[in-house]
């Protein structure tokens, strides 16, 4: 039985190691969520578990309640960063590129409480989520959101959340968490590229696709333009059909959103259009997505 016993011991050790950097986060009236001490004094949790921005507190593994302050939050990745005066070790982030479907993982909630399972898939995102997500075959119990996804070696490979998808259990990769934490620590927010248009998929007739060779079977019709937004300033009109961004076909509003969100604010992106039956190109300077607009 030695292999099974070794695995059991490894999993228990992994939990013990990860649990040292975990706190309970009191950010909503009913149920505390979980937070991970990511950088000295900076705690990451799941944004959707904060019902308030005031009177936040964290509870250490040995039961001390410590007041916490919100440094910044990002609804798109469902991450928030809190500041608290903690004397706990920081988490040991793992190498997410090495994470693969089939790897045994543990979800750890404050307590510690544990569930185990496997990675179902790595990569891809929920709607509007530009960061890579890890999909999980395991149970996220109440209060587990914001807690670490831990590999069998005890490394934190992601932050678990039930807030990004009603049906799927997901974790945000450690790399995305690190990037969001750095941005929030530096600027108090996460800036994202933004065009300021509403898009609706439309099937492109064969004749239209001959006109714009870069187009796929579906284009995205501009159904709203934010006044004075980046797209409006670049001269995009209602009724234009967006078929490509920087030469790559776009077929779903989510594709376009993810492409733009990943661009730095101020960068130029070339939009390939079908306009009045003819091909057109418009250069758009990527703006910054206003706060509170996911």
């Amino acid at each position, binding site marked *: *039985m030695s292999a*099974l016993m070794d695995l059991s*011991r490894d*999993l228990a050790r992994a939990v013990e190691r990860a649990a040292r950097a975990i706190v309970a986060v009191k950010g909503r009236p009913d149920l505390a969520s979980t937070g991970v001490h990511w950088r000295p004094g900076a705690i990451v949790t799941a944004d959707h578990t904060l019902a308030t921005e005031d009177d936040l507190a964290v509870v250490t593994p040995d039961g001390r309640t410590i007041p916490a302050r919100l440094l910044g939050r990002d609804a798109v990745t469902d991450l928030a960063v809190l500041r608290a005066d903690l004397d706990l070790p920081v988490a040991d982030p793992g190498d997410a590129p090495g994470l693969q479907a089939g790897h045994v993982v543990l979800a750890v909630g404050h*307590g510690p409480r*544990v*569930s185990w399972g496997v990675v179902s898939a790595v990569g891809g995102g929920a709607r509007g989520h530009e960061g890579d997500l890890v999909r999980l075959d395991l149970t996220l119990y109440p209060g587990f959101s914001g807690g670490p996804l831990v590999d069998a070696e005890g490394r934190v490979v992601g932050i678990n959340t039930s807030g990004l998808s009603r049906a799927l259990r997901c974790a945000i990769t450690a790399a995305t968490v690190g990037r969001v934490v750095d941005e929030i620590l530096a600027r108090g927010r996460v800036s994202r590229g933004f065009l300021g248009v509403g898009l609706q998929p439309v099937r492109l007739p064969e004749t239209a696709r001959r006109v714009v060779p870069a187009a796929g079977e579906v284009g995205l019709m501009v159904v709203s333009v934010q006044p004075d937004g980046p797209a409006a300033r670049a001269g995009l009109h209602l009724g234009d059909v967006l078929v490509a961004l920087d030469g790559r076909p776009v077929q779903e509003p989510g594709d376009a959103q993810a492409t733009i969100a990943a661009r730095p604010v101020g960068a130029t992106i070339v939009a390939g259009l079908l306009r009045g039956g003819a091909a057109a190109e418009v250069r758009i300077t990527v703006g910054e997505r206003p706060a509170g607009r996911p």
Partner: protein
Amino acid sequence: MAALPVASDLARLARRLGRSTVAVLGPAGPVGSGVVWDAGGLVVTNAHVVRRPARVRDPEGRLLTARLVGWDPERDLAALVVGAPLVPAVIGDAETLRPGDLVIALGHPGGGEGALAMGVLHAGGRPGGGRFIQADIRLAPGNSGGPLADARGRVIGVNAMIANGLALAIASGAVGAFVAGLRRAAPVGA
């Protein structure tokens, strides 16, 4: 191929644990499971699965009538004595386990044949005044009364209920106290 030794260990553990696990029968088949607790043929199960007359099916598939020698609906424990030699389980103690340690359950979920499930110890805390072990493991009705074991195959609890997706097993210490109480009340034997 590091996973293969784990798989063969698990298969071996399941066979060993299966020798000490019985099906507790209702009129139409298994309604629960039971653990052979000692060499005297004492079988422990949940009070809520026992029907009268009590009948069990042993690991060899023999149908046996059982004598109900203990029934405690408050602790949800019952003890049966069967008139046939059965292999007792090795009894362990969940106190030696930490959250994340593997746990294995055997039983008759859904009234079917003996089925294996694997999960982990959910937390060190014990609800019910210390009586229950919490496990992250997928159980179903029919696992009730069956063993929850550690990675060595030692029985650390008797599966009793599922609450909010978590399996709750009556800790082996509490089961042991129940069995000791029976022995004080009346000598139990074949």
